[in-house]
């Protein structure tokens, strides 16, 4: 394949394709992920992704846990979007058990989940900058602002990463007193940081030269490959679960769904950058209308027994559609607990997107998927 790119005098020589292992321990693979690249010179003719190094049984373990103990495992499924994953799980349990969380709890969840989306996208920009050769600069910029958000989360939940804060029926404890003011302060500083990141990356010659037009994906392909989240929106399809199937209280907020034009790597960046602004907008709206009141549904038993049945709940996590499928048989533990990881489905399109590109571009394509290996392997 693609022999014609060789200089003429080389094509007379007999050459063979060679296999190159990228990973599992490689900074460009964003975790323990292995790609077996078959390359012909610099051209990639085949990609064989090898996953499973991070498998910890995150779907099976919760089947031996009380419904409330499971929340901690969801933090560890997608460790960059903990609030989004917790949100998905607790909503799944609530739907199955028929619990209605109080208004304030819903607002708290939305605010924190959207802040978490910003933090996750910041992480993406940081890591992606490293992939394309901006070295530490974008990483440091993004981490500075992500750190602000994490400090803010620590003030609320006590933890920097594994929050374990949402509960079926509400949230664990109330917000600190100065929450509103503190939250807008954090948002302001983060938005300034996003502006800087914008200036650093989006018009940067290096980024434009390397990302524009790289591995464009059409809408049909995107749907057929099972892409979701920013990857799918970059192809131009306006699909966002917060709009398509509003959960929690997302139907009360105004926000735009940013889309790309041709689904190339640059569009994926643009979509994520714009999503950060949209998330900030949602948080501001929620802060204005957040009511006072209880944060936990009344009348919950100490042992949460969920009526027999099954439920599939999906949310828009920063990486795409994160889903939880629960089957209950009426006991205090889920009988079946299945997680749909957005990165897993997005990653499955890697081969189709990379074949025919250069080795260095495959690294960028992988980076632009924004995978979290813990979510891929679970």
């Amino acid at each position, binding site marked *: 394949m693609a022999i014609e790119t060789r200089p003429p005098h080389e094509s007379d020589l007999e050459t063979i394709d060679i296999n190159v292992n990228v990973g599992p321990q490689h900074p460009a693979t964003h975790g323990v992920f292995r790609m077996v690249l078959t390359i012909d010179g610099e051209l990639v003719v085949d990609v064989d992704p090898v996953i499973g190094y991070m498998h910890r049984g995150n779907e099976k373990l919760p089947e031996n846990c009380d419904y409330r103990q499971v929340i*901690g*495992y969801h933090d560890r499924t997608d460790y960059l979007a903990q609030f989004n994953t917790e949100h998905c799980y607790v909503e799944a349990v609530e739907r199955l058990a028929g619990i209605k969380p109080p208004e304030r709890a819903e607002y708290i969840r939305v605010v924190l989940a959207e802040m978490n989306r910003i933090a996750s996208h910041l992480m993406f920009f940081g890591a992606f900058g490293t992939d394309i050769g901006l070295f530490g600069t974008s990483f440091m910029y993004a981490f500075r602002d992500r750190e602000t958000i994490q400090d803010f989360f620590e003030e609320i939940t*006590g933890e920097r990463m594994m929050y374990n804060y949402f509960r079926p029926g509400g949230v*664990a404890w109330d917000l600190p007193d100065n929450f509103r003011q503190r939250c807008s302060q954090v948002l302001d500083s983060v938005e300034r940081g996003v502006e800087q990141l914008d200036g650093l990356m989006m*018009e940067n010659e290096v980024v434009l030269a390397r990302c524009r037009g790289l591995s464009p994906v059409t809408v049909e392909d995107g749907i057929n490959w099972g892409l979701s989240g920013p990857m799918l929106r970059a192809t131009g399809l306006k699909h966002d679960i917060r709009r398509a199937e509003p959960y929690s209280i997302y139907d009360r907020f105004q926000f735009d769904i940013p889309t790309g034009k041709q689904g190339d790597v640059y569009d994926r960046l643009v979509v994520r950058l714009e999503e950060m602004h949209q998330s900030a907008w949602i948080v501001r709206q929620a802060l204005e209308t957040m009511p006072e009141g209880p944060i936990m549904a009344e009348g919950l038993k*100490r*042992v949460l027994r969920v009526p027999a049945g099954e439920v599939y709940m999906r949310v828009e996590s920063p990486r795409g559609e994160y889903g939880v499928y629960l089957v209950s048989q009426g006991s205090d533990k889920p009988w079946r607990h299945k997680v749909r990881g957005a990165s897993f489905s997005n990653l499955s399109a890697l081969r189709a997107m990379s074949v025919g590109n250069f080795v260095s571009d495959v690294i960028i394509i992988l980076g632009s998927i924004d995978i979290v290996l813990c979510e891929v392997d679970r």
Partner: protein
Amino acid sequence: MLGVLKAIQTTVKAALRKPVTVQYPTEKKTLPHRSRGLPVLLWDFDINEPFCTGCQVCARYCPVDCMTVTMKDNPNFAAGKSKRKKIVDKFYIDYARCMRCDICVEVCNFDAIVMNNTWQGVELSRYDRQDLVMDLPALLRQSKTGELETPFREPMGVAHSGWAPRMDEEEAAAAAEAASLEKHHGTSPDKPSLSAPTPDPTAEAPPESKASAEQGTPEAAEGLEKEGGEG
């Protein structure tokens, strides 16, 4: 070309502002009040004994099974000094396994355990991971020496997060006794929900697995506990 200039302008601007990092071992960030370090036990200065009655509720709810607790008769109760009939005998937490989930704090009916929110905790870098298994004196040290000035414990935390209704002192003592009875005889005298004595009579019994966990030694109980799933 303009794009590169813009990027460089951003970098130059950033180079001129103050650093945001803190040089950790010499400087430390102030921790928020809610900060969740590793769990430690609280010391009751009025009676000079731990708050913990050794009821094992926390050990049973710990998702990673890193706690081991045993209970004994309280000598201070016999002497009439304390209201606690039972008191903790041995308490081990494996800090290497703890995932700082806060569940033990939320389920404890006696406000006996909190998450450490100071910098002066246990140094976690050790040569042997056995050294991270903390025993009772180690767990009580911070509270006893007053290092743990204002532990965070949401006043309504337990009820709010839906784990357990509050108990008053009498109920708590009864619960402790009942738990110990159950531990010795493997049966429950009156209430179905011993480990979770609730004022609400309609409240449901604890999961079946909890009952099985009562019968063995705490070590065995921990193993049993997780195997008791319905699936």
